[in-house]
């Protein structure tokens, strides 16, 4: 794979940018929203040819800073220089920043779902032949970009049919199409798997060599250490420190981010198990996984690892009654059950924390209380018909407090809460329902370090209360740190189960890629 020649995507004649020159300079930037100071006197410099990691908790001001740089937000005071030229902030806009060669790729998709990947890449910048769109030229150019990124994505189908990682690649292709000087990657990898992330790193390296400056915003500190040359830490809108990545390590970084030291990332895994709560035998899902066996006991966390296309999410949904099962058996508490719907699954004691918390986990029109109590509404009854609103609010309040949720009112809409707080509500739904088996699909996706550790602690607490947890995660470290056993899937089949001494990154990675050392 490595010996494929990078293809030049640049139009001929464009000079390679000089390395080490400041591309973006932000000086004394303050950004005030009504009642909040999102950025307070922040300085930031991005040099050509470097990848600059921007880290901080949710609400620390990373995205706000990025938005100031691209002109989506207008800073209240401060100065901005692009490529050495001062910018007139009063007239600065996204349009101008694009003309200056600043591109941004968001975590949330900004693609048009119904149209093809090809058109998505070129939308607004169609190539013309006379009065007509030159599809052939666009296709060739798109193919070159994909080849350059060493990715194989079907650009002919509407992007809604593409997988998350593939869509992310379409977004990236769109961003590097226009000869950008500066590329801002805002949580790009939050929804990606390890293999795809490595791919992104490789692309970043190539772009760096061409003299581009890259601002890399991520919650995954490992990525910052792996991929970035320099870093800037923000905390509560204030600039904490900038420096070279080679001078720091993870604990130091964490300390700067959350303003305190974290002694233990992962608590000792619970080793006291009860009976088998959930068992799956020979489960085969329509157009997805085949012949899956797994079991999880009371007090146990099992992990499911797998790359994109391993059908982990489908497996979880099938157990939860939301994906068609064509063959196989599911046992809960030793009894065989035919789960017909999520409703049925919930009655049997299952709870699902879905991977897309905004579209699957929460109702964005609802407040905290209504979201938290939604799976349990039938439990708060007065005279068997009427809702007991007070008891409902009390229960929601108790769980929100237990979760250390930061909120001012139970009636508060969930839309504006941070990712970590939203995820806490999704988990609280099932704690309130008193579910026994928690199916968690990437529960720490896109949430900050502090909130991640809180989720880890929560998972640990749940096991000590005798709950069983099935944890899907793209982060191997997380799986190793939290799970008693890790099941590894490859293209819909179970490759291996690791526990004890075999539970290492190396062993898991081999199975992830379909290399089986187990002889199973």
């Amino acid at each position, binding site marked *: 794979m490595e010996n494929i020649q990078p293809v030049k995507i640049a139009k001929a004649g464009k000079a390679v940018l000089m390395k080490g020159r400041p591309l973006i300079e932000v000086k004394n930037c303050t950004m005030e929203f009504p009642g909040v100071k999102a950025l307070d006197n922040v300085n930031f410099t991005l040099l050509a040819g470097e990848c600059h990691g921007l880290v901080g908790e949710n609400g620390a001001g990373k995205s706000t800073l990025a938005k100031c740089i691209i002109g989506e937000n207008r800073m209240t005071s401060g100065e901005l220089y692009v490529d050495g030229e001062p910018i007139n902030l009063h007239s600065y806009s996204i349009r101008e920043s694009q003309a200056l060669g600043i591109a941004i790729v968001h975590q949330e998709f900004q693609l048009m779902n119904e149209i093809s990947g090809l058109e998505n890449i070129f939308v607004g910048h169609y190539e013309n032949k006379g009065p007509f769109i030159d599809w052939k030229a666009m296709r060739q150019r798109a193919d070159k970009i994909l080849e350059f990124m060493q990715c194989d994505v079907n650009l002919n189908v509407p992007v809604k049919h593409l997988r998350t990682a593939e869509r992310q690649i379409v977004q990236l292709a769109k961003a590097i199409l226009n000869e950008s000087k500066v590329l801002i990657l805002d949580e790009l990898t939050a929804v990606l798997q390890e293999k795809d992330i490595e791919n992104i790193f490789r692309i970043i390296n190539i772009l760096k060599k061409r003299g581009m400056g890259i601002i890399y915003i991520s919650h995954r500190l490992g990525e910052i250490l792996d991929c970035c040359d320099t870093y800037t830490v923000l905390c509560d809108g204030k600039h904490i420190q900038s420096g070279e990545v080679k001078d720091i390590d993870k604990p130091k970084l964490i300390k700067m981010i959350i303003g305190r030291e974290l002694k233990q990332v992962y608590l000792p895994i619970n080793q006291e198990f009860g009976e088998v709560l959930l068992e799956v035998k020979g489960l085969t899902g329509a157009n997805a996984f085949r012949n899956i066996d797994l079991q999880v006991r009371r007090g146990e966390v099992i992990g499911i690892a797998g790359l994109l296309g391993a059908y982990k999410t489908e497996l979880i949904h099938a157990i939860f009654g939301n994906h068609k099962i064509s063959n196989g058996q599911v046992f809960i508490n030793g009894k065989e059950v035919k789960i017909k719907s999520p409703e049925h699954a919930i009655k049997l004691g299952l709870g699902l924390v879905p991977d897309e918390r905004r579209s*699957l*986990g929460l*109702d964005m029109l609802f407040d905290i209380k*209504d979201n938290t109590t939604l799976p349990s*509404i039938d439990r708060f009854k007065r005279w068997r018909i*009427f*809702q007991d609103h007070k008891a409902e609010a009390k229960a929601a309040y108790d769980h929100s407090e237990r979760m250390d949720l930061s909120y001012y*009112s139970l009636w508060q809409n969930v839309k504006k809460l941070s990712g970590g707080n939203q995820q806490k509500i999704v988990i609280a739904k099932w704690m309130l329902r008193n579910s026994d088996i928690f199916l968690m699909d990437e529960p720490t996706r896109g949430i900050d370090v502090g909130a991640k550790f809180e989720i880890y602690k929560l998972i640990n607490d749940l096991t000590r209360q005798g709950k069983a947890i099935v944890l899907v995660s793209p982060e191997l470290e997380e799986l190793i740190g939290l799970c008693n056993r890790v099941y590894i899937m490859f293209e819909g089949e179970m490759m291996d189960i690791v526990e004890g001494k075999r539970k290492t990154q190396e062993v898991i990675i081999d199975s992830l890629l379909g290399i089986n050392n187990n002889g199973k």
Partner: protein
Amino acid sequence: MESNKDFKAKSKRYSGGWRAFFQDWMILILFVTMIILFSLTSSTFRTTNNILNILRQASFIAIISMGEFFVILTANMDMSLSSIIGMVSIFFAGFVVTMGLPIWVAIVLVMLMSVVVGIVNGVLVVYGKMPSFIGTLVTMNVIKGLYFIYSGGLPISGLPESFNFLGAGYVGLMPFPVILMAVIAGILNILTQHTALGRSFYAVGGNIEAAKLSGINVKFVGIFAFVLCAILTAIGALGLTSKTLSGNVMLGENLLFDVMTIVVLGGTSLSGGRGRIIGVVIGALFLQVISNMMVLVGVNTYWQWVVKGVILVAVVLIDANTKRD
């Protein structure tokens, strides 16, 4: 005790400030302002008779709008409503006048027919995964065809006088339709605000996938909304029929527009998941007051359509352009 105090603080409805309060009750504030304004300027408007008249005229359209409210709340739309009105009216009169069935039997029969239409609508949309606009447009035309085949388009008159009570009777000073509307609105308000089923409508309309994964039977809820709509529409249609004592296939023509205006006026989000029964009632009264005032001032029918159109546009514009968080 500390935590109890904290709970009280955090479960206060409008801790978000007066803005949230204003957004929730904007329509009511506008309505009251309008009433005061009209009462001050017009001596005919503020007579008891006129007020009771407004209430009576608004009643059945309000009941029908409450039906559409449930469908819109679940992020669907029922276009077949005007046909259900025509169907109920003509078949009811047919059963009673032509076939000589007792009134209560005829009522049960037309109710059953409406329930069937509601189920068909629901199944087409929920199981058939048809866009509700298309699915109900189809049933609208099919029903229309059927009742025209049945009646030839002619009205059937000669319903017994006693049936007139439903649409024009009085209990003491209060017109019966107003009482009926108030009772139905009260029951539906309790249903939406104080029962699990009621909350499910909001959950389905707000985010159907999240609702499904939270264990709500989204298919049942979706179909039930259509059935509820058909039943309420049938009640409204019977009331309208009783006013003239004749079955008329044209009874529902042009009503859909008023119903939509009322539902949206009442603060119901067209994308589903937001709205209240009380809002629909206020919306119906709102529209009726404006119609009434226009009649008093002497605006002709065609201009009334124009004014109503402008109102709908204004309300939808406000709804689409104010963010509620």
